[in-house]
């Protein structure tokens, strides 16, 4: 967490944090034992975006070429390629939602792909069970209280070797666990009494919760000053106001998704993406990050080319724009995986929305991706192929997708993936040809 130059010019706070054992001191521990995975993963960056609420895969990547699509979807179906408000073409069958223009541009360069029918092992259609399984990486609900991304960090090196960060005011399950991960959310970082952090550090000496949290939070706050300054230089032309956006940021969980005016919201989302990039590119910055975006539970009036869901996807696209642009040269070493707890019903429901379903689309982005078509098989939307005559049928276990990324991109070996990162998942093979 400590910028490299800060080690040479230690301020009082940096000395304090060094004493806490974060950053510099642990890098000497067990460095040799982890040399292999270190070589494989050096400089690689991974961002996992969790879309909470059940993102409708059939709208994110509409299979407009599937013969059953338009009928099942009725008023919320997206128009075919080339028509006004139509899907943006990926291949003969699939497009992207028209709100995902930046992502579509990346896809045209081979830097974005879809996995259109992935699902967690959970089949209960409960948000909370499915979110738990998605983020914990367990094969059953509430199987573990730590997150798979945290255990992946553990597999990559001794404590603190690989830096991780979550965006949002609260800590998501996916990054909870043994490795202390930083967290950051927008908000004015007022200067505090210079004595208080030191006093609290002593007071928290025996506190397993507050001690590490405060140390990590202070270190991140220092980095944020650099990261938000970087983001300001990347801010979109229509951006106004300070770079450290107000707490009503549009995209990050814990913010207020419907508060920002629609015109302003994409700019804020783009700025958040750029800020995250700033965190990840500075010396000693996070190599792995988790972002939670909520507001996808579209039971009513979800809309098609425009509407509620389109607005959310506009935020997502703007966030990805800010992130990919902000990472700049580091984009080529980056993979972004975006997934949701479940998809939604194939048929539109009685209130212009969709209810809880099963498989959905996962999105893969990054300069480190291998070029290729869709990841996994498409089961089609033919009536007989729908899962329980209702949902897109899963053809790929989401853990397999994550494993493929962790193995190919971060060099985590199969045995660890099968046992500790995704416990009891030996029969779920890593997706091949992704990274």
């Amino acid at each position, binding site marked *: 967490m400590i910028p490299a130059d800060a080690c040479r010019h230690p301020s009082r706070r940096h000395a304090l944090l060094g004493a806490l054992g974060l950053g510099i001191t642990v890098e000497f521990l067990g460095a040799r034992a982890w040399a292999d995975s270190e070589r494989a993963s050096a400089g690689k960056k991974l961002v996992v975006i969790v879309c*909470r*609420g059940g993102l409708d895969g059939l709208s994110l990547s509409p299979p407009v070429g599937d013969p059953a699509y338009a009928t099942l979807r*009725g008023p919320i179906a997206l128009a075919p390629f080339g028509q006004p408000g139509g899907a943006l073409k990926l291949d003969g069958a699939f497009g992207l939602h028209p709100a995902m223009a930046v992502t579509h541009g990346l896809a045209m360069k081979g830097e974005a792909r879809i996995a259109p029918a992935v699902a967690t092992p959970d089949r*209960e*259609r*409960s*948000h*909370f069970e499915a979110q738990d399984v998605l983020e914990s990486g367990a094969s059953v*609900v509430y199987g573990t209280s730590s997150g798979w991304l945290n255990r992946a960090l553990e597999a990559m090196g001794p404590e603190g070797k690989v830096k991780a960060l979550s965006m*949002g*005011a*609260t*800590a998501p399950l996916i990054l909870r666990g043994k490795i*202390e*991960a*930083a*967290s*950051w*959310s927008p*908000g004015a*970082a*007022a200067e*505090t*009494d210079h*004595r*208080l*952090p030191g*006093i*609290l550090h*002593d*007071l*928290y000496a025996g506190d397993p*919760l*507050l001690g590490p*949290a*405060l140390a*990590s*939070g202070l270190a*991140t*706050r220092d980095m944020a000053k650099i990261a938000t300054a970087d983001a300001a230089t990347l801010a979109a032309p229509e951006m106004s106001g300070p770079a450290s956006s*107000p*707490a*009503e940021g549009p995209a990050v969980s*814990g*913010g*207020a*998704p*419907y508060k920002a005016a629609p015109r302003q919201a994409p700019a804020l989302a783009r700025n958040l993406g750029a800020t995250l990039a700033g965190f990840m590119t500075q010396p000693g910055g996070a190599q792995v990050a988790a972002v939670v975006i*909520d*507001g996808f*539970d579209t*039971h009513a009036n979800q809309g098609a080319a425009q509407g509620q869901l389109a607005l959310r996807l506009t935020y997502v696209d703007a966030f990805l724009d800010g992130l990919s642009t902000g990472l700049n040269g580091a984009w080529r070493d980056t993979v972004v995986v975006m997934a949701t707890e479940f998809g939604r019903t194939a048929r539109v*429901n*009685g*209130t212009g*929305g969709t*209810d*809880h379903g099963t498989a959905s689309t996962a999105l893969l982005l990054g300069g480190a991706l291998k070029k290729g078509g869709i990841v996994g098989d498409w089961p089609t939307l033919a009536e007989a192929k729908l899962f*329980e005559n*209702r949902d897109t049928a899963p053809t790929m276990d989401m853990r397999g997708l994550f494993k493929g990324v962790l193995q190919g991109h971060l060099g985590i070996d199969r045995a660890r993936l099968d046992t500790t990162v995704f416990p009891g998942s030996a029969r779920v093979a890593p997706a091949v040809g992704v990274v």
Partner: protein
Amino acid sequence: MAVDKDIRASIAVTRFGLGARPGEIAAARGDPEAYLTAQIRPEGADRPAGATATSGERINEYVAYRKARAMEKHLGVGKTDDGRMANRALRLEAGGDFFARVQLAARTDAGFRERWTLFWANHFTVSAKKLATVTLVGPFEEEAIRPRVFGRFEDLLVASSSHPAMLTYLDQARSIGPGSITARTKDRGGRRAGLNENLAREIMELHTVGVDAGYSQDDVTEFARAMTGWSFAGRGDSADSGRGFLFREEAHEPGARTIMGRRYAGAGQAQARAVMKDLAASPHTARHIAVKIARHFVADDPPPTLVARLEQAYLRTGGRLDAVANALIASPEAWEPAARKFKTPYEFMVSSWRAANVAPTDLQSIAAVMTAMGQKPFSAPSPKGWPEEAQVWCAPDAVVKRMTWSEAFATQVTGDRDPVQLAQVALGARLTPLVAKTIARAETRQEGLSILLMSPEFQRR
């Protein structure tokens, strides 16, 4: 024994209650249990002062707002200043409701009663994340929750499930039986009218039996069919209707339903009502509620013996919540000296005001801070409500924000008060010598109060 009584008094006020105002721990010391049981009363929770509008009035305002918006669209004038003002006014009203609740929490002498109430408001979450529900969260708590928190669980369930706020939040109001008269006669602009299973699912999963009760997708769908017609007088209805609960017979799916192995022949509104009665009486519900209460009051991972006591009280009394509250107070596990609950931002701020014996003076400053700490007012992230786990709230960024707020707060309120004395009054026997010593050594009084608020024992309850 005296020591035991001192620690029990501080637990009664800080763990069961909302934190100690000056003199409260001393008041509880005579009989800490009786201090709590005296707060249980048939008429339910206190009502926040100043929150006067009913849900009906709020719905009327919202209907007017939507009509004005539709007119703007029709005229193609875009959003006018009037429209923007109206939108802002709706949000300000919600802010007023929240502020009234905060004032009550900061001042009440019945902290346990209010904590118990907040627990139920969170159990039956309606979040302000939809514009249509923004102004209804306050009236929902006032009308559906507060009067019934010490009555029968079944009554609370029915009140929640039939309130316009819940019917809107979980999309029930417009769910239509595919075989109903409405579906057969009304062609909604080419759109098929039909079911929306959102509320039915969350009643089963979150409000009653819980996700492990062994029900299937078919049970959810059947319950959603039974619920069709549960609606309220909204935009399409006359303003004279009172805007209250309305059963739309013509939208109700005809026929008997089978849910979790039981057949419900009854027609109309009574059908879903009968399902709710059985759900409330289910042992799964007793268990689910018991676990949640124990988790909220005692520990994220609560002692099974405590859960069993609460469960028994629920089953023995047919789900009487006053009996469950009494059982909680009578449970030795709830009085374990080690504080295991990490305060949420709301709890942290409320207990800070109480410790300093002040009440907040404006909403704007607290709303921004609560949002920054991860708990935007009235805006729980999902129908599951605010999480309980310490790990969620003790994120690094949030702890720094608590520290920053503590300092600003201490600067405002300390004055010439002695922080050591404030600490003794706020924590009683829970104040450790280390924290007392650290506060005594503070450079300024303000720093002393900041240390108290950020101390491990004040951050927990």
